C-alpha cells in the first residue's frame, strides 16, 4: 500500500518538476558559493593549516622578498646607478636581444664572419643605434627597479634592508640585524649564513640568490639581506588567514551538500523520466520528437559555450562583482536547465530503446538506403543484373592489388548469390507443392526484389486456386447430396409402381390393348429404375465417397470374366468381340470391382451404340509403367459431339435420346477411373469410337 503510494507519488509530474527546480536551486547555491570562494579567498592553504605561523605562505613570502632584494641589489643597485647608465655600461651583445639582432643584421649586411674584429667594427660603426638601444634598456631597467620596490613596499608590514657593501636599499634605514631578527617572521642573509623564521615547506630560491649566498659563505661577497614582517603586519595577515579559512570551510560544506542533493535529484529524474503513474511503459514527451543526436549536439554546444564564455563572464568582476554574480547565476541556471531538458530527452530515448532508431542520422541513412533499394528494385531486371556484374568487375579491378579485400568481396558475392539461390529454391519448392495440389501452401520469402514479387504473385495465384477448388468441392458435394436424397425419394414410389404393374399384368385388365399398355409401363418403370440407380452411382462416384481398395488385378482374367458375365448380351447383340493381348501377364494396380464396373459401362455403351454385326476390338497392352485396355468399335450413329463432351453427365451418343440408357455411363466410368488413379480417354475418328483405360502397373 505504502509502496504503491510512494510509486504513484514519485511518478507524478509535479514531483518531477519540483525535483527539477530543486536541482537548479542547488546548482545556483553551489555556483554562488564557488564564486564566493574565488572572489574572497586569497590563500587556499588556510583550509589545511590552521595557524598562519605554520603556513608555507608566510615562509614563501619571506623567501620571495629575499629573492627580490637580491635581484635588486645585484643588478640595479639604486635608481641613480641606473640613471647614470651603469647598468648598460659594460653590456655585451648577448645580454640584449636588441643588440643581438642588430649585430646579426650588421654581419649579414656586411657579409662578415662572426669574430672579434667584426665585433669591434660593429661597436664603432653602429654606435648611434647602439646608444639608442642602451637608452631604451635603461628605461626598462628603471621601470623594473620601480616595480620591484613597489612589490617590496606593497605588502603591509614588510620591512627590509639590503646592501652589497656599497649600495643600500631599505624602507626602514635600519641596518641592524637585531632589528629584523627580533620580529616573529624574518629572513636573514649575511656572513653568518641564511635564516628563515618560520621555515615551513619546501625552500625555493632563485639560483642567483643561491650563488650569492654561497659566495657570502666563502667570504668573497659582502651582500647582506634582511627582511621581516612587523607584528602589526603579521596580525593583519593572521586575521585574513582565519577569515579565508572560515569562508572556505563554510562554502565547501555548502557546495558538497548541494552536490549531494543535485546528484540525488538528477538520479531520480533519470530513473523516473518517461514513466507515468498508470503503467510501466516509457512515455515519450512531445519534445522527444527532436532527434536524440541533435539533443546531443545541443548539449555539446552548451558545454562549448560554457567553456568559451566562462572567463568573459568571470571578467565582468573587474567592472562589478555583483553584475558578474548575477550574470554567472542566471547564465548557469538557464544553460543547465537547457542541458537537463535535452539530457533527460536522451535518457528517455535510451530507456525506450529508440536512441539509435530515432536519431536523425539513422533516419536519414535508413530513408536514403530505402530509397536506394527502391530505385534498385524498381529498374528493369536485365539492367540491374548487368549493372551489378559490371560494378562487381570494376571493384575487383580497382582492388586487384589487395587480395584480402578481393577475398572478402568474393565471400560477400558468394553469400549474396547463395541467398538468392536459396530464395529461388524456396519458390521452386512452393511451386511443386502447388502443382501437387496443395494450394494452401504459401511461399515465404524475406526481403524485397524480384523474387519477393514473384513469390507473392505465385501465392496470389495459388490462393485464388485454393478458393476456386474449395468452392468446386463444396458445390460438388451439395450436388451429390441432392442427387442421393432425390434418388432415395424416387425409389419408394417406384417400388409401388413396379409391383402394381406386375400385379396388373398377372390379373389382367378388360381392354384388349391392356397387355400392350402394361408392357410399356413395365419397360418404362424398369428404365426409370436403372436411371435412378445410375444417377445414384454417378453421384457417389463423383462425390468421393467411394474408396478404392487397390490390389493386383489380372487384366486378362478380368476381361475374360466380364465378357463371361455379359455372354448372353454378347450373343444377343450379334457383335463379334476380338480380344488381343500383348502379354499373358498383365497386372494392374486397381480395384477389381470398380474396374469391372468401368468395363461393364463401356461394354453396355458398345451394346447400345455399336453398329449391328460389326466387330469390337479389345486390345490389352502395357508399357514400363502403365497397363492399357483399349475398346474399339464402329458407331451405329453419327457421332456429332466432341469426345470430351461425351464424358459429361447426361451426354449421349444420340442427341434424340431415343434409345435406352441414362447418359451417365461414361461419366461414372471416368469418375471410377479417377478414383483408381487411372485415366479413361475417349477419342472419335469418324465412326470409330475408341475408349482407352490407362492404369498403373502392379509391381
Amino acid at each position: 500500500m505504502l509502496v504503491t503510494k510512494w510509486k504513484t507519488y514519485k511518478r507524478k509530474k509535479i514531483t518531477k518538476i519540483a525535483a527539477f527546480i530543486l536541482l537548479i536551486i542547488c546548482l545556483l547555491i553551489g555556483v554562488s558559493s564557488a564564486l564566493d570562494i574565488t572572489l574572497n579567498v586569497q590563500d587556499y592553504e588556510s583550509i589545511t593549516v590552521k595557524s598562519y605561523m605554520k603556513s608555507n605562505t608566510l615562509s614563501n613570502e619571506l623567501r620571495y622578498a629575499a629573492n627580490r632584494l637580491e635581484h635588486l641589489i645585484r643588478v640595479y643597485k639604486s635608481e641613480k646607478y641606473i640613471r647614470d647608465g651603469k647598468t648598460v655600461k659594460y653590456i655585451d651583445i648577448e645580454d640584449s636581444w636588441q643588440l643581438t639582432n642588430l649585430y646579426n643584421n650588421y654581419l649579414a649586411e656586411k657579409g662578415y664572419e662572426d669574430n672579434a674584429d667584426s665585433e669591434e667594427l660593429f661597436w664603432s660603426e653602429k654606435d648611434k643605434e647602439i646608444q639608442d638601444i642602451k637608452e631604451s634598456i635603461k628605461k626598462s631597467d628603471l621601470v623594473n627597479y620601480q616595480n620591484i620596490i613597489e612589490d617590496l613596499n606593497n605588502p603591509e608590514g614588510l620591512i627590509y634592508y639590503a646592501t652589497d657593501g656599497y649600495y643600500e636599499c631599505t624602507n626602514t634605514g635600519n641596518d641592524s640585524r637585531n632589528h629584523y631578527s627580533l620580529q616573529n617572521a624574518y629572513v636573514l642573509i649575511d656572513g653568518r649564513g641564511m635564516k628563515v623564521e618560520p621555515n615551513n615547506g619546501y625552500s625555493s630560491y632563485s639560483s642567483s640568490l643561491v650563488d650569492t649566498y654561497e659566495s657570502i659563505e666563502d667570504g668573497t661577497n659582502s651582500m647582506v639581506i634582511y627582511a621581516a614582517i612587523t607584528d602589526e603586519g603579521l596580525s593583519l595577515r593572521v586575521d585574513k588567514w582565519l577569515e579565508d579559512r572560515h569562508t572556505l570551510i563554510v562554502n565547501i560544506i555548502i557546495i558538497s551538500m548541494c552536490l549531494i542533493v543535485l546528484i540525488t535529484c538528477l538520479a531520480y529524474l533519470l530513473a523516473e523520466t518517461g514513466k507515468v503513474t498508470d503503467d510501466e511503459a516509457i512515455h515519450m514527451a512531445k519534445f522527444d520528437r527532436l532527434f536524440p543526436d541533435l539533443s546531443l549536439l545541443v548539449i555539446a554546444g552548451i558545454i562549448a559555450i560554457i567553456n568559451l564564455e566562462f572567463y568573459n563572464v568571470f571578467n565582468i568582476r573587474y567592472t562589478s562583482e555583483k553584475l558578474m554574480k548575477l550574470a554567472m547565476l542566471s547564465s548557469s541556471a538557464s544553460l543547465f536547465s537547457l542541458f537537463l531538458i535535452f539530457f533527460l530527452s536522451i535518457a528517455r530515448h535510451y530507456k525506450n530503446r529508440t536512441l539509435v532508431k530515432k536519431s536523425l542520422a539513422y533516419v536519414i541513412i535508413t530513408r536514403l538506403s530505402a530509397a536506394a533499394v527502391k530505385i534498385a528494385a524498381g529498374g528493369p531486371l536485365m539492367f540491374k543484373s548487368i549493372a551489378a556484374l559490371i560494378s562487381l568487375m570494376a571493384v575487383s579491378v580497382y582492388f586487384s592489388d589487395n587480395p584480402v579485400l578481393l577475398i572478402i568481396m568474393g565471400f560477400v558475392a558468394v553469400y549474396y548469390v547463395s541467398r538468392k539461390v536459396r530464395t529461388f529454391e524456396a519458390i521452386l519448392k512452393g511451386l511443386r507443392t502447388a502443382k501437387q495440389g496443395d494450394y494452401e501452401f504459401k511461399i515465404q520469402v524475406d526481403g524485397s526484389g524480384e523474387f519477393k514479387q514473384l513469390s507473392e504473385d505465385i501465392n496470389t495465384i495459388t490462393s485464388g486456386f485454393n478458393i476456386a477448388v474449395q468452392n468446386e468441392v463444396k458445390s460438388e458435394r451439395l450436388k451429390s447430396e441432392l442427387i442421393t436424397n432425390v434418388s432415395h425419394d424416387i425409389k419408394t414410389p417406384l417400388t409401388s409402381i413396379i409391383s402394381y404393374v406386375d400385379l396388373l399384368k398377372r390379373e389382367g385388365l378388360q381392354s384388349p390393348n391392356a397387355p400392350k399398355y402394361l408392357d410399356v409401363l413395365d419397360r418404362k418403370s424398369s428404365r426409370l429404375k436403372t436411371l435412378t440407380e445410375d444417377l445414384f452411382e454417378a453421384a457417389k462416384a463423383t462425390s468421393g465417397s467411394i474408396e478404392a481398395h487397390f490390389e493386383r488385378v489380372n487384366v486378362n482374367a478380368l476381361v475374360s470374366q466380364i465378357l463371361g458375365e455379359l455372354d448372353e448380351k454378347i450373343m444377343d447383340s450379334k457383335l463379334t468381340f476380338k480380344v488381343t493381348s500383348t502379354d499373358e501377364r498383365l497386372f494392374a494396380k486397381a480395384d477389381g470391382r470398380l474396374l469391372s464396373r468401368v468395363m461393364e459401362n463401356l461394354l453396355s455403351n458398345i451394346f447400345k451404340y455399336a453398329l449391328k454385326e460389326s466387330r469390337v476390338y479389345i486390345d490389352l497392352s502395357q508399357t514400363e509403367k502403365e497397363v492399357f485396355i483399349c475398346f474399339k468399335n464402329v458407331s451405329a450413329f453419327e457421332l456429332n459431339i466432341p469426345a470430351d463432351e461425351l464424358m459429361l453427365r447426361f451426354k449421349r451418343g444420340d442427341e434424340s435420346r431415343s434409345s435406352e440408357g441414362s447418359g451417365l455411363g461414361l461419366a461414372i466410368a471416368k469418375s471410377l477411373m479417377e478414383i483408381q488413379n487411372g485415366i479413361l480417354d475417349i477419342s472419335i475418328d469418324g465412326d470409330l469410337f475408341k475408349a482407352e483405360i490407362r492404369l498403373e502397373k502392379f509391381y
Partner: protein
Amino acid sequence: MNILVCDDDIEIVEAIEVYLKNEGYNILKCYSGLEAIDTVEKNDVHLVIMDIMMPGMDGIKATTKIREIKNIPVIMVTAKSEESDIVLGLNMGADDYITKPFNPLELTARVKSQLRRYTTLGGATEKDKKDYYKTGNLLIDDERKEVTVDGEQVKLTPVEYKILLFLTKNKGRVFSIDDIYESVWNEPSFNPENTVAVHIRRIREKVEIDPKNPRYLKVVWGVGYKVEDI
C-alpha cells in the same frame, strides 16, 4: 406361416401382401417400428419383412428389438443401396436384404429361402454323410450328383456341376480361371477364351436368387472365383 410386413408406405405393404398371399402365407401388416415389435410380441410370427427408413423408430432399431424377443428371420427392405447401410443392417440382426425398387418375384424367392432355412434349421440330418458338401443353404450330394438350394433341386450340366463341386469343396478359397480350367477339364489351360466365366455365370443363374448380387458363387474381379463359406 405368419409373415410380418412393416413399411410406412401402405401401398408397398399391400402389394407385398398380394404376392405373399398368393404363395399361401398369412400376412400381418404394420406401419411403424413400435407396431411391429408389439405384433411380434403378441403373435406367432415366422418371418419379418422390415423397411429401414421409417418415421419414429427406424427399421434397424426395430430389428434389434425383435431379435431380443424372438429368433426369427428378418429381411430388410431399403432404399439405401450403399454398402455401409447394408452391412449395418446385417450386423444389426437382419438375415437378408433387398433394395428398393425390388422385383416382387425376387422378394418372394428370398422369403421362401429364408423360411425354408428357418424351418429346416437343425433338421439337416445328412450332415455327416460322405461326399456331402454344404455352404449356407447350398448342398451338394456328390454320391447322387445332386445340388439343392434352399431344399430345391437345381439342374446343372456336368461341367457346371464339376466347377461348383470344385469350388464348394474348397469353399472360401479364390481360384483363378486357369486353376478352375485345369482342375475341371484336366488339361493345361491354353487360351480358354471366356469358357469358365460363361459357365460360372450360368451356374449363378441357376443357384442364386439374384444373380447380379450372388450369395454363394462370387466373382473376385481380376483374380478369379470363389464359393463363399457361409
